[in-house]
């Protein structure tokens, strides 16, 4: 490795990096992938078939250790007894935020990044997102349209497999679907009411889980514990889907435990490679390449750019126009609403194991009948309907055999619903290098300054009203009202922006092909490039953009333009 100059260095091995590596290596480009975390070993680290009674803490986790080592990560639903190994140690990975602007930064550093634990929800964006500014006048359009990205969505979906149903909704374009999963009984009951009362579709989630075998990967067996790893690779994660494809080309080299600190720039203003620090030994090194692709996750890629400071780039690479670090977004959610569907109470257990729920797509400000002038953009609803497992045991009075019999035989049926909305990109939501705090490898930590604005708060009011109406129409009992406040910024793990794309170098960091304006051999392909976020999960779009960028890189590389 030392002394060698690779064609391309890809920093990060998750959803974006995996796709860039696959596409480039399949076109004959030699790729070195640097991953900051360790490799995960299925037989050692995957726990999807482990029973709670096989664990010391029975699934509830070693609270002392979580509080001491993962005080931020533990707040993520998936960072539990089974899966905490897929999340970083917060003591090694500090960041700061103003006391009145809390930010939850959930991170997974390992070969595969966060793709072990992602929720697999895969919705295409549409021109409601890509051309939002043209529609309502706020912000900027993306530098391409849905039509431009559509073939890349197709390629991604054909390879990873996305299950779902075609619905012919312009705000939620259909995909190359595998057979859809099925709604639960509660969701079917809700579907009828929601469609009749509101005119909205209620459909099963579109997820990157295989409902039929695909490309050598067996179909899902519905153990419903995807976030614990998957021996059969029946959902998309990069270590079992895109990275093996890259490895099979013979042009792929993977180095784990290499924490990239900054780009190494030359006198011509191009990148010569990257500087890194060995995670375990703390020994620093440099690796050379003709092209560098940052795919380390939205905020980490931006941190690397910000930390690539020099006389020529005093504000970091891509930082000369004051946009780098800005326009951070994360979805707004109003959560925890729901109740019990008394008509579906039963003494008989229904089959479980479906790794998804339902969604009511965005209609507000996306259809003529659902306009709300109090705010821009819109939101969707999601949740699930299912029998309680033993959540009702504590509210069932008594003890002994009679109490157990009641818990077993009187099974309540719960229906949950939450709203997820678009967060507008604002210049005053930003990340910057913290002047003092450093991580375990001496790299400046991020200071994250983000809060929801008036538009999100106005949207939250409408979300709350709609959640109440939905629960009224479904006649839910023992209701939980949605939380009073919007979620903490970052909680949805959909952080995007901070190195946005655009045609104009004065108002964006990257061009339409994820290339840093003015630095033609540096690309950023992860969520940092997002211009707007819509209300849907970003990962599928990150993957499609990564493929598109990789096509461009391969072609420009072939022409000698990089």
């Amino acid at each position, binding site marked *: 490795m030392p002394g060698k100059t690779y064609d391309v260095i890809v920093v990060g091995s998750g959803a974006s990096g995996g796709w860039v590596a696959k596409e480039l290596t399949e076109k004959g480009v030699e790729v070195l992938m640097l991953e900051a975390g360790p490799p995960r070993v299925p037989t050692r680290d995957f726990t999807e078939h482990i*029973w709670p009674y*096989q664990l010391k803490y029975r699934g509830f986790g070693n609270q*002392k250790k979580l509080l001491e080592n993962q*005080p931020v990560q533990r707040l993520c639903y998936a960072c539990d007894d089974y899966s905490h190994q897929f999340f970083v140690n917060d003591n090694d990975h500090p960041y700061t935020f103003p006391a009145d602007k809390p930010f939850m930064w959930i991170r997974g550093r390992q070969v595969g990044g966060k793709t072990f634990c992602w929720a697999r929800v895969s919705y295409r964006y549409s021109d409601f997102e890509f051309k939002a500014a043209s529609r309502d006048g706020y912000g900027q359009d993306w530098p391409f349209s849905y039509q431009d990205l559509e073939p890349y969505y197709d390629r991604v979906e054909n390879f990873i497999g996305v299950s779902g149903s075609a619905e012919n909704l312009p705000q939620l374009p259909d995909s190359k679907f595998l057979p859809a999963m099925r709604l639960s009984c509660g969701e079917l009951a809700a579907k009828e009411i929601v469609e009749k009362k509101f005119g909205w579709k209620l459909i099963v989630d579109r997820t990157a889980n295989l409902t039929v075998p695909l490309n050598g990967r067996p179909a899902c067996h519905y153990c419903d514990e995807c976030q614990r790893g998957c021996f059969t690779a029946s959902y998309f994660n990069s270590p079992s889907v895109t990275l093996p494809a890259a*490895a099979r080309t013979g042009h792929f080299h993977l180095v784990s435990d290499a924490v990239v600190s900054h780009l190494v720039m030359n006198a011509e203003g191009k990148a010569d490679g990257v500087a890194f620090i060995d995670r375990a030994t703390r020994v620093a090194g440099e690796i050379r390449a003709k092209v560098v692709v940052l795919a380390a996750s939205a905020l980490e890629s931006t941190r690397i750019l910000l930390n690539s400071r020099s006389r020529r780039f005093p504000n970091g690479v891509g930082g000369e126009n004051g946009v780098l670090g800005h326009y951070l977004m994360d979805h707004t959610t109003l959560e925890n609403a729901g109740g019990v569907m008394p008509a579906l109470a039963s003494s008989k257990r229904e089959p479980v194991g479906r790794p998804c729920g339902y969604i009511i797509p965005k209609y507000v400000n996306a259809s003529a009948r659902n306009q709300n002038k109090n705010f821009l953009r819109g939101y969707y609803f999601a949740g699930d309907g299912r029998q309680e497992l033993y959540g009702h045991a504590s509210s069932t009075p008594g003890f002994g055999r009679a109490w157990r019999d009641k818990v077993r035989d009187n099974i309540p049926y719960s229906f949950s619903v939450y709203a997820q909305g678009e967060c507008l990109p604002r210049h005053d939501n930003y990340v910057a290098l913290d002047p003092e705090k450093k991580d375990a490898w001496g790299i400046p930590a991020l200071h994250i300054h983000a809060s929801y604005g008036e538009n999100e708060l106005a949207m939250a009011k409408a979300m709350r009203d709609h959640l109440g109406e939905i629960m009224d129409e479904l006649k839910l009992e023992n209701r939980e009202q949605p939380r009073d406040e919007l979620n903490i910024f970052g909680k949805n793990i959909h952080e995007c922006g901070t190195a946005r794309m655009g045609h104009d170098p004065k108002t964006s960091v990257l061009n339409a092909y994820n290339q840093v304006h003015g630095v033609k051999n540096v690309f950023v392909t992860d969520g940092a490039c997002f211009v707007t976020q819509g209300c849907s999960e970003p990962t599928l779009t990150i993957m499609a953009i990564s493929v598109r960028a990789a096509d461009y890189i391969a072609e420009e590389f072939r022409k000698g333009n990089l």
Partner: protein
Amino acid sequence: MTRREWFMQLGAGVVLSGWSASDLDAAELPPGVYEPSRDHLSHALAGHGLAAGGETELAQQSQPVFFQPSEYGRMVLLTALLLGETPDAPVVNEIAAWIDLTVGESAAVRKAALALAPAHRTLAVHYYGAKAVQELEELDPEAICREGLAWFAREKALEAISDDRPEPHTENAGTRFFTYLKGRAIEGFYTSRTGLEELGRGNPNFHASPPGCGSK
């Protein structure tokens, strides 16, 4: 034949033939990159745990870490009453050990909660709410259990302190003890093999097609 039945047959066949994951691991892939495994079901069906070196803590046999032997005997008796089992039932001892572990580690958990950095406490308050964070910092299961056991030694009547008691507004050391104990017993029992089987969730959850309304 359902897919689960097919899986069971496949799993049994794989175990009998001695075929193992290492056959697939021979593929030349970088560390951390893996091919889909065809033998995960034998792994699951045989109830194998995790290979050594993982970060997930596996169950261990242990002596009581908090209760004195005489107290532990009373805890076992109470657990048996709560679950409607005899004190010598294996599941009773399993759950009593779980309660002992949670009580035994509670002081360290409280200390860790009180030691959270201000920024991390802020996040916890926003995430869980101030009341939940305060409870984590202040809940004292050792005291609840010691006082509760003393109360129970005098009164010897679980009915009087249960959440189904005749005087629901009465609160004392006994009722606080019952509430705590029942919570831990629920956690323990419904994550035990016995409890999961009672809820119809005792077998590996495999299906041939997506489960949904009306599926078998």
